[in-house]
């Protein structure tokens, strides 16, 4: 019995109107890497919150090493040796790596911090697992991959035995992902038990020993990875077969819709330009994809294109009309739709209802506002209901649900519904499938292709190479604020793209 490090037995957690976890059992063996797979809203986060004592389950028990334990708050979880690397890191930006690691468990002598011993321990751990982290570097100066290692070191420093990784690869480059996989395997070999929450089937196949699948709050099953295939796993997750390959007709590009000449955008982080003289165009009926590793100027390029940041230099035209200085509202009316990178930061007013968010780009139109400036609530409700149905946006209370309470996938669907239903000439989609499950990704890819087939232009910014290869008709690679290569997805390999993305190759401009 005692070969399980942690067992969550028959956990049931209800919220008003919904059963988030319905009789779920999760058993984590000692020294194994156990993947937890499920769509958004499947109940993974709730289950982890139960494990961390943030929620108390109505039913079920948690056992550690075969003994029943009570976890009433995160301190209890910590005392039991459970640690977690969150999707969004919990680090103090202006502190050093070492300070972040010891934060909360500092050794002091007479109120004075004793860092020397901590430094030795961190260096020893770092060497043991091959982390190569400089304990004195400030968090804000190191890469995302290094920040993640700091989080892992935090758990190791606390001698945690059970390590939870929540979507750890979402922010990493392909190389960093490989390094993380190695680290995870090393940790498991050292006897740590790892719970690996992810959507990415390839990673599960590569690194996990077993995989438990949740769907709509229910426990579907646990399988040994050596006995399964990605297709089987995804069918378990979504309850049907999923089409991995995006089906689309051959590309027939028409006139140029968007033309960007020599765009330069200043950086907020450093003195150099974040975007440096980028020129590109998007034609009718094609999906152009900007590929690249996060932080190479894609975000700033989109800000400049959509008007969120001013340009230092350059010219933007859409259907021949000068967009360079145009206010955001006018760009939107004239046919530019923008699915923003960060749905919480830009995409939604989280404390507004779903219906208010759905009309966020159109509330001022005569169909929703009368000539005295009063909102037409009934028309807004009807319109929201139509989009909710058409785009299958699921929520607790329909149009009056607060956006904050919806799952990430459905929030994204609401944004996509809003932006596509405006019937734009150009759809700028920035990482539209970030953090979403296979089912939602498939749906969103279909929507992008539908826009293209309707003769619109789509500019897709993506960090996911699978997405880049499957969806786009033309690939532009961005490296350090410049376009370093243009490719036809049929004629290029992922490895080749990776070299351009990492800056080790570039085509002469």
């Amino acid at each position, binding site marked *: 019995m005692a070969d399980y490090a942690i067992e969550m037995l028959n956990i049931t957690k209800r919220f008003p109107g919904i059963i988030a976890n319905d009789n779920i059992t999760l058993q984590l063996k000692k020294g194994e890497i156990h993947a937890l797979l499920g769509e958004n809203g499947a109940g993974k986060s709730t289950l982890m919150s139960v494990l961390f004592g943030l929620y108390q389950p109505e039913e079920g028990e948690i056992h550690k090493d075969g003994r029943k334990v009570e976890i009433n708050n995160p301190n209890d979880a910590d005392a039991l040796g459970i640690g977690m690397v969150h999707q969004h890191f919990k680090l103090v930006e202006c502190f050093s790596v070492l300070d972040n690691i010891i934060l909360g468990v500092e050794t002091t002598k007479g109120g004075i911090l004793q860092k020397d011993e901590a430094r030795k321990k961190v260096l020893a751990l770092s060497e043991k697992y091959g982390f190569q982290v400089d304990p004195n570097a400030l968090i804000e100066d190191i890469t995302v991959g290094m920040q993640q290692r700091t989080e892992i070191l935090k758990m190791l420093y606390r001698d945690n035995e059970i390590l939870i990784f929540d979507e750890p690869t979402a922010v990493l480059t392909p190389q960093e992902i490989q390094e993380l996989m190695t680290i995870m395997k090393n940790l498991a070999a050292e006897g740590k038990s790892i719970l690996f929450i992810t959507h990415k089937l390839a990673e599960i196949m590569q690194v996990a020993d077993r995989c438990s699948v949740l769907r709509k709050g229910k426990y579907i099953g646990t399988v040994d990875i050596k006995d399964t295939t990605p297709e089987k796993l995804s069918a378990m997750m979504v309850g049907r077969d999923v089409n991995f390959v995006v089906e689309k007709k051959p590309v027939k590009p028409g006139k140029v819709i968007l033309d960007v000449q020599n765009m330069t955008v200043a950086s907020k982080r450093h003195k150099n330009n974040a975007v440096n003289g980028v020129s590109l165009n998007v034609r009718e009926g094609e999906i152009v994809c900007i590929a690249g590793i996060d932080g190479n100027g894609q975000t700033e390029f989109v800000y400049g294109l959509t008007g969120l940041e001013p340009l230092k230099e350059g010219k933007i035209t859409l259907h021949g009309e000068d967009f360079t200085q145009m*206010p955001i509202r006018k760009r939107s009316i004239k046919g530019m739709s923008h699915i923003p990178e960060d749905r919480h930061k830009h995409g939604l007013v989280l*404390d507004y209802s779903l219906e208010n968010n759905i009309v966020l*780009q159109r509330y001022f139109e005569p169909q929703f506002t009368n000539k005295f400036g009063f909102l037409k609530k009934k028309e807004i409700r009807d319109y929201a209901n139509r989009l909710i149905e058409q785009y299958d946006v699921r929520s607790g209370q329909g149009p009056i649900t607060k956006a904050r309470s919806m799952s990430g996938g459905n929030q994204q669907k609401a944004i996509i519904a809003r932006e596509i239903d405006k019937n734009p000439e150009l759809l700028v989609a920035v990482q539209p499938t970030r953090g979403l499950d296979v089912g939602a990704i498939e749906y969103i890819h279909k929507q992008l292709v539908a826009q293209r087939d309707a003769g619109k232009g789509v500019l897709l910014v993506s960090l996911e190479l699978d997405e880049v290869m499957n969806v786009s008709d033309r690939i532009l690679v961005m490296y350090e604020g410049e376009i370093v290569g243009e490719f036809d997805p049929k004629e290029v390999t992922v490895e080749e793209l990776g070299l351009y993305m990492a800056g080790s190759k570039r085509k002469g401009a």
Partner: protein
Amino acid sequence: MNKKNNTRDSILRNDGFQTIIASLLCILLGLLVGYIVLLIINPSGAAGAISSILKNFLYYPSAAAATKYLGTTLVKASALLMCSLSVLFAYKVGLFNIGAAGQYVVGAGACLYCAIALHLPWIVCLLAAVLASAIVGGISGALKAYFNVNEVISCIMLNWIGLYAVNMLLTTVKEETTPYTKPLSSANSSAILPTLGLDKLFSNNKFVGLGLIISIVMAVLVWIILEKTKFGFELKATGMNKLAAKYCGMREKTNIILTMMISGALAGLGAACFYLTGVEQWMVQQTSVPSMGFNGIASAFLGGLNPIGAIFSSYFIQHITSGGSYVDKTMYCAQISDLISAFIIYLCGFVLFFKLWLNRYLDKREEKQGMKAQKGGEA
């Protein structure tokens, strides 16, 4: 049985209902704390003091006198209501207008100067107050929008600038022998707000009039703007998520400035509605910003940040503030009334906490019931 429970729960879950309950709880708690403090200072007079505060104008045995002083409380409450609207309007847009006090002062200065020095009719004085206060509010708004200066800091500084500027300005129109501005009745009676016959209802209290109606109309207007119009939709969106507002093309900078201007205008209108009745003269040697604007903050929260709720909370706060002046001064020092009303007002800020607690309690109970129902089903 179950059904009955459900309807009761849904009432308890209702936001408006929760606000009312929480506000009442805050009031009770405030009174209790105030009572305890009075007991500590002087046990023998505590009960009497609390009841004087609560009785306010009912202190007078004659019905006529009581109605008359009810009128005066209402005049003050209407000014407070405007300050409270000023605070809550800005709050909905994510701005904390602690400058309502200063905007109120500037409004008072503008309308009194126009009335006494320039001999202008009341409507012009009223508009002057609105305009001046809107400009003061707009300064804080512009600083926030263009230079990201925290509006709390700039508002507090403007409160003092406003106070001393107004003191200087009104020194030119003060009575020769006292530090008070000349009474409107003798200096310029055309500047006094029309009573519209309302004075008759309050035992010929000539201060009651148009101001009362303006304040109620404004409360309703603010509610309509926030809840029903495109403008309100934009303002609230800007308040909740400035970046999303920018993303969807709202002019967030303009909205911030406009909000602070409207907020200032409301406070200025409150000052005009108060000082243009002639109920009080400005004391040009004041060294502290009148508390009206600050009480507006408490009143906005006690009213659950709802313009209609603010009508009632403003009245209540003014009621106890006025009531404080009837406390027996032989037993307690003169500041005791301010202290007690301050306790109550302070606790009024806890409305939001009470709502949180109530919801947590309901959640827990629901969980328990859910478990019971489950067990019952199994058995």
